[in-house]
């Protein structure tokens, strides 16, 4: 049974209230650092920042609609090898889920971290955020939540919550030790702290939080958000299916690709130290390019772009958490997240697997079950 | 070809026509028969029902007699019960020397000794193995074309000793029937039991077997058999079977040599259809002579 506490400081707004809370957390003796999105001093861009001094936590801004990268990669860096100190990390649900996948792939470790998850109403693409934040980045979160929590997706200046976020059906954190909830509350000031794991509950107690029940309004708000998102997700997947259901259409869809590999750098679960596409496997002889060109009369350069995306799909579709960073990173605006979310949904449901759901579930491709996909494998028939 | 002929009791009584037709047909095919002098009953199924030793000693007496005769001749038995009883002696004394000793003790009373040197042959064995359908065909002068004949083998020429035919699905009569011009009536009752002496000891059980066979033969023109007991059961109890099944059976049950005689153009006296209890006119009309008329 989770422990829950409502934080509601009458004199403070959400922003200041959160800052106080996290200062309190970082002040705990056994928590040595906090990794959280903060507005940077120079240009107020929101980036994940590793803080050890609680006094520097004022610009903490976890609800800013900015999502420059999936922080699971950062947590991986902090925990891949034993570090010794305890870090609290503030993560969006999709970041937690990506982290869980990475831990399964031995790219991170949960032992020395406290995960503080947040309710996630979504975020803009990087360029859109800059546009939206404009001159007043410090109010961006407040402005955004005012609309987003009442169901708005489009905002001033024509910016829109990213497609991946609008299709996301995991707005509430799973697998976090502590969770910060804002859905279904008075978003101006209130937030809900809940502890779901043993680690979280211990911290909860030491923080001296007082217990309370979860307000009914929260459940209703989440349900209504989910139904909108599911509908959008379905439309999106139908649309992508139509656009890419033949090899030719797929090639057209991906034709803008320039092999910059930004998407794989941005992808939290693309964990290879070096991608196979930059190894000698694809270091073709010059003779080879000419031979290909001769065979068909012409060949698009660079080569292997569709192959690259298909390979990436094969490698990560069972681990894809749908965070949308691939689209975010694409310089040529290819709708990669739509494509990857759709393919991930198919492959994960085929294995009855959900990326990031649980540390206990082994990645499907490391598990051998003799009786699966009989119709595909046709062993001995 | 020459055989020692052992007709057995039935062929002197109820199966007289079998005796006569067998001799006539074999004669016509150039086979010589020397009847065993002073033969006695083989014990039929009755000896078995009363005394184990008698059931061997009685047939053994006849084999011992045959052994006294010159030449290396086989004993020919047209009656399946006789055949089996003689065959049993032939086979069992090999397996059980003690039995041979006991038999010979009994045979002493007749001044006979059994050595076990004679082979007993069934009439059907001789017809199908020694003579062959080809030779029979060449003796046919009035082929019984168009007759559908149900071959009925009964039990004892087939079982328990599988000597000349498949004991479950016998076929040995078929080439002979075909050589006579007849067509073989396909059924699977050829090797089934007719009830044997149950017709006397437990008629309520026996009659069902008879009726079952007659039912299955319904579309045949005649049943042909090589066993007096079977012939009797199938022929003589048709009335009772009819009564039980509320139907009217009128199936001619002929001995195989009778049908052969008809096709080979032998005379009535050599065939003696008149001795059969049931030869409906309908059947006679189908015979080649009738067709000619």
């Amino acid at each position, binding site marked *: 049974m989770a422990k829950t506490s409502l934080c509601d400081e009458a004199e403070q707004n959400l922003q200041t209230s959160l800052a106080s809370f996290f200062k309190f957390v970082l002040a705990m003796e056994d928590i040595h650092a906090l990794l959280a999105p903060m507005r940077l001093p120079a240009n107020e861009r929101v980036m994940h920042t590793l803080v050890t001094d609680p006094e520097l936590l004022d610009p903490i801004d976890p609800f800013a609609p900015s999502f420059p990268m999936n922080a699971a990669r950062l947590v991986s860096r902090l925990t891949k090898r034993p570090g010794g100190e305890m870090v609290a990390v503030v993560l969006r649900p999709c970041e937690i889920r990506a982290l869980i996948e990475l831990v399964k*792939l*031995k*790219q991170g470790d949960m032992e020395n971290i406290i995960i503080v998850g947040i309710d996630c109403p979504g975020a803009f693409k990087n360029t859109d955020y800059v546009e939206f934040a404009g001159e007043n980045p410090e109010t961006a979160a407040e402005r955004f939540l005012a609309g987003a929590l009442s169901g708005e997706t489009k905002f001033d200046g024509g910016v829109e919550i990213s497609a991946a976020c609008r299709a996301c059906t995991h707005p509430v954190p799973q697998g976090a030790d502590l969770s910060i909830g804002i859905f279904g509350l008075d978003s101006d000031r209130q937030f809900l702290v809940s502890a779901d794991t043993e680690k979280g509950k211990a911290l909860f107690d030491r923080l001296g939080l007082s217990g309370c029940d979860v307000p009914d309004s929260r459940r209703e708000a989440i349900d209504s958000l989910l139904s909108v998102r599911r509908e959008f997700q379905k439309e999106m997947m139908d649309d992508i299916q139509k656009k890419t259901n033949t090899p030719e259409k797929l090639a057209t869809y991906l034709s803008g690709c320039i092999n910059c590999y930004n998407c794989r750098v941005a992808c939290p679960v693309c*964990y*290879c*130290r*070096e*991608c*196979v596409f930059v*190894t*000698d*496997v*694809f*270091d073709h*002889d010059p*003779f*080879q390019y000419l*031979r290909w060109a001769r*065979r068909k009369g012409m060949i698009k350069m660079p080569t292997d772009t569709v192959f690259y995306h298909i390979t990436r799909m094969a*490698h*990560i579709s069972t681990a894809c958490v749908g965070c949308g960073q691939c689209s975010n990173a694409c310089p040529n605006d290819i709708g990669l997240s739509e494509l990857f979310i759709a393919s991930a949904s198919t492959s994960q449901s085929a294995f009855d697997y959900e990326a990031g759901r649980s540390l206990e579930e*082994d*990645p499907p*491709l*490391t598990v*051998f079950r*003799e009786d699966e996909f009989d119709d595909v494998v046709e*062993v*001995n*028939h | 070809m020459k055989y020692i002929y052992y007709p057995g009791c039935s062929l002197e009584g109820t199966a007289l026509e079998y005796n006569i037709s067998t001799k006539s047909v074999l004669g016509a095919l150039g086979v010589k028969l020397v009847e065993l002098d002073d033969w006695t009953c083989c014990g039929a199924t009755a000896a078995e029902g009363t005394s184990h030793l008698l059931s061997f000693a009685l047939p053994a007496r006849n084999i011992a007699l045959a052994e006294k005769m010159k030449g290396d001749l086989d004993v020919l038995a047209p009656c399946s019960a006789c055949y089996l009883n003689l065959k049993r002696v032939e086979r069992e004394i090999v397996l059980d020397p003690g039995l041979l000793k006991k038999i010979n003790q009994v045979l002493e009373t007749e001044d006979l000794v059994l050595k076990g040197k004679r082979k007993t042959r069934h009439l059907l064995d001789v017809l199908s193995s020694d003579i062959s359908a080809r030779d029979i065909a060449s003796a046919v002068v009035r082929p019984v074309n168009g007759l559908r004949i149900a071959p009925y083998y009964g039990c004892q020429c087939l079982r328990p000793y*599988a000597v000349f035919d*498949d*004991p*479950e*699905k016998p076929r040995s009569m078929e080439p002979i029937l075909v050589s006579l011009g007849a067509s073989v009536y396909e059924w*699977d009752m050829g090797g089934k039991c007719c009830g044997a002496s149950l017709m006397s000891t437990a008629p309520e059980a026996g009659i069902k077997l008879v009726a079952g066979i007659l039912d299955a033969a319904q579309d045949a023109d005649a049943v042909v058999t090589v066993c007096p007991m079977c012939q009797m059961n199938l022929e003589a109890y048709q009335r009772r079977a009819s009564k039980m099944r509320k139907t009217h059976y009128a199936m001619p049950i002929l001995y195989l040599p009778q049908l052969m005689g008809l096709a080979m153009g032998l005379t009535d006296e050599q065939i003696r259809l008149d001795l059969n209890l049931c030869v409906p006119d309908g059947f006679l009309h189908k015979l080649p002579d009738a067709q000619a008329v």
Partner: protein
Amino acid sequence: MKPKIGRALVVGGGISGIRAALDLAETGYGVILVEKAPHLGGVLSQLDSQFPTNHCGMCKMLPLVERDAGSQYCLRKGLFHENIDIRMSTRVAAIEGEAGHFTIRLQKQPGFVDPDTCIGCGMCADVCPVAVADEFNAGLSRRKAVYLPVPHMTPNTYVIDSAACSRCGECVDVCPTGAIRLFRQGRADFGVLVVDDEYTVRDSIKEWLEEEGFFVEAAASGEEALDAMEKQSFKMMLLDIKMPGMDGVAVLKKTMENYPEMAVVMMTAYATVETAVEAMKTGAMDYLMKPFDPEDLVSKVIDVYEVREASMGETMEAGAVIFCGGTECYDPSTGKNPFGYKVFPDVLTGLEFERLISGTGPGGGELVRLSDGRPVKTIAWVQCVGSRNLQLDKDYCSGICCMVAIKEAMLAKERGHEDLEATIFYMDMRTFGKSFQRFRERAEKDFNIRFTRGCVHTISADDKTGKLMVTYPVEDSRHMEAAFDMVVLSTGQQPAGGVDKLAEMADFEQNPWGFARSEPFAPARTKRDGIFLAGSFSGPKDIAESVISAGSASLCASAAIHAAGGGMAEVDGDLPEYADVSLQAPKVRIALCECGATLPGGIDMERIAADLKADPAVENVFVIPRLCTVEGWDMLVEKTKGKGYNRLLVGACTPYVYTRRLRQLGEKVMVDPALMDVEDIRSPAFAYADAAAGDIEQAMARRLKSGLSRLREVDPLPKQSAPIARRALVIGGGIAGMTAALAIADHGYPVDLVEKKGELGGNLNWLTHTIEGYDVRDFFDNVRQRLEKHPRITVYVNSRVVSSFGAVGNFYTTIETSDAPSRTLHHGIAILATGGNEAETTAYCCGQSDAVITQKVLEQKISQKQIDCKSIDTVAMIQCVDSREEPRNYCSRVCCTSTLKHILHMKKKNPDLGVYVFYRDMMSYGFAETWYTEARKAGAIFIPYTVDAKPQVFVGEKGDPPVKIKAYEPLLEADVTVNADLLVLATGIVPALPQSLADAFGAGIDADGFFREAESKWRPVDSLKEGVFACGIALSPRSVTESVASAEAAAQRGLRILSKNALTSARVTARVRHSLCSLCERCIDVCPYGARSVDLDMQKIIVNAAMCQGCGNCASECPNSASVIDGFFDGRMLDMIDMVIE
């Protein structure tokens, strides 16, 4: 490589023969594998699926050490190993000499098709006018007289069925490679001399033979004949016996003096037959009796001609012989045939059924009635056809049919009509093997297969529905009739035809059931030293048992060769040293075979050559007119002698033909054969035969380019090897452990034997006799003495394994002995022989009364004379106590036999003793069936019970009988009560393999606590982790003799490794490119051989190359090719694919 020191002959190329040959070959011996059929695989070449996996899996038998010495693809397709010399269509004619030094004479049947030249194109079969029943499809389809014996062989070359062939010669004319010789052409050179004083005889014979193309001379007398022989050479003489002047016998004598090679056939009349027989002692080959049929005479001459010209006798040396002749299936059409087999088309044998549902079967696997082609919706299996049948003199259980029937029923359910119903009619469902009971329950529960206890006695046809009516008794003695579309007869196994002749020739005995007889407690041995038995040749066996017995036989053979001075092969040195080309850029030389002039018209090899030369990696391309000829091969050798290249690609026909020859070529021209390859360019030429020449050329070029890509990327680095500890550790000192230890030590390697108790022997300490009457104690004493005296065996009693680490070749195991410091042993292999014990129970009032005891206690009481059989009236026994139901849901295999043993013993002491046995299924498999019959004959009454209605037991008060058993008797349809003096419970066996011990060696344990084999059928004594083996009861319940077999098999598996100084990894193994590796460890999870581990200090994934089998799981799991398989590097694979689809 050095010539092999020891060599063994393996007779029979079925599963056990292949296993024995591979075992010996892997250990380093040379093997001659002789098979009388034209193909290997025995009956398994016809069976696609095996219980309990219902897949094949034969490939799991492929060599695991020194893999490069053999082929690494489907074993049903073929077998290649450097050390195995395979002789098809060959029989053993004589075995002389003694163990260690046998002289073997082989006789090869005439081969009309040269397998080295035949390319399997099939043009011969297309024109062959003769069609006969195809034995591969169990006669369900037809084939030509020239045919492929098995459709899936590689290389698949045609053979001619000499009996069916009419010698018309059509095939010879169309064969594109001239592979077929009917030896007709040579007939004119085959001189036949006909000697007879009668003009008409000699003249007509002359005429007949001349018509057949022979050269014939006639002679009217003996003198004339001798003259003729001086003038001209003849190969054969037809010689009349009775002639005026010099008679036939005199001529024969003279001829034999002067022309001993002459084949003389005597011609005789009835009166002189005896003389003719005498003449054969003088040297005549045969005789013919006058008057003769021209056809007989002509075919006799042709036979002689063909045998002389085409068949080859050969004499070889071998140190030991293993007979693996297998069995035959009972033919239900013989005898009384109550099931109408071959009468009703829908009555099939199991083998026919398996062919019918096989994809390579006559109907492509569709399950339809053979009578009318309608779909099969109901099938019945009838068990024990030709088994357990005293009438057929088969008082044994074939052992395998129950499981085969269950498997077939499952296959039918899987592949047949969706609502197909399957029923198995049985008397006892003998699920006595490991996991069999659960397999049966899966069939019953998950597959809804019906099991009906009852012996089918009649099958008839219903003409209206076309169905088969099956009549069977139900337990309450009524009879049921049920309709089925198809009936499958589970035909039993019987001794292979010709066992008696082989027995006479090789001087071994047959057992009372007609199989080859093995010695007590030595299942692979015959009475003749050096002659061994494997597989079902000595009695029905399933695959696992056959594989074990093959291991046991190879162990014995190896020991025999070793004892006679032939050592284990040392494979060091003498390997040709090829230049290291790893730093050179690939330079490929290409040889193209034009295949005579047989390729479709218009193809220009030079054009293809020019196309290939465009690739900068190609050094040169040259064309050879016909590679399969001697001249062609010489030309290749010539053209590859020059320098300037470092890889060779040959474009020719079926590549497998050349694999062996490339090795020879490599040694000649000093290019590593691993850097050579053959690409099949002939198949595309014919696949596109109708296309334009240009298109065909492109197709051929595509193949070659693909081969080129493959070759370009071959890693030229030499193989690695690692030294090993040539010492074995055996854990458990029961019969299995002792046997294994002795077997290894006898080969000269030290063995450490660890036993947890204070004394050796395990269960042998209480067993006294086997059911056959063999004395277990004598046997035990013998083994113990030999073991204790053995200089190479160190025994540690009161000891246990504390921990172990390492891998094949180098294990480090720490053992703890009471009252002594612990010590660490360094060993190359480990054998787990931890055994098992009789299970304890509290069921059926056991423990509440002295009158209720277990079978083990009974045996002890009998041996200690604590039971006076004469003083008791009635004994009851209950089988399967706590067994064959959850949680101990397995059959303990030995209990029914012990029960029978005790019954027979007690009945012998007291024939009037009443014996009542309550059983579920009597598991008297194999020859134990005879003892079951004997127990019945002795008067024991067997009463079946079910799990739902177990017998009830009451322990008596004063005055009552000591124990009272109430149960339902289904045949009498009534309850029965047995008032017994003694109740004996068969509680079965529980294993004694601690989890911690298994874990220490990386071995698995199954649900019941037994050792988990790498594969239950094909690798029954191996762990998935190489170097760890198990035997005896640790594997599963088994008898003393069966334990010996498994122990010898495990020892043999170990010797494969210990016989090497170092383990050399194969060319195809996995490697990690550490710079790319993210250490996600997924590759470790997916490696089935436990060959991978992570080194946390080095932050590296480590591959044990000796354990890696190159399966490729890791490479396909690794997303960025950090894990690669040598020889299958991504770039090369992509390149090859690219070339093929160009």
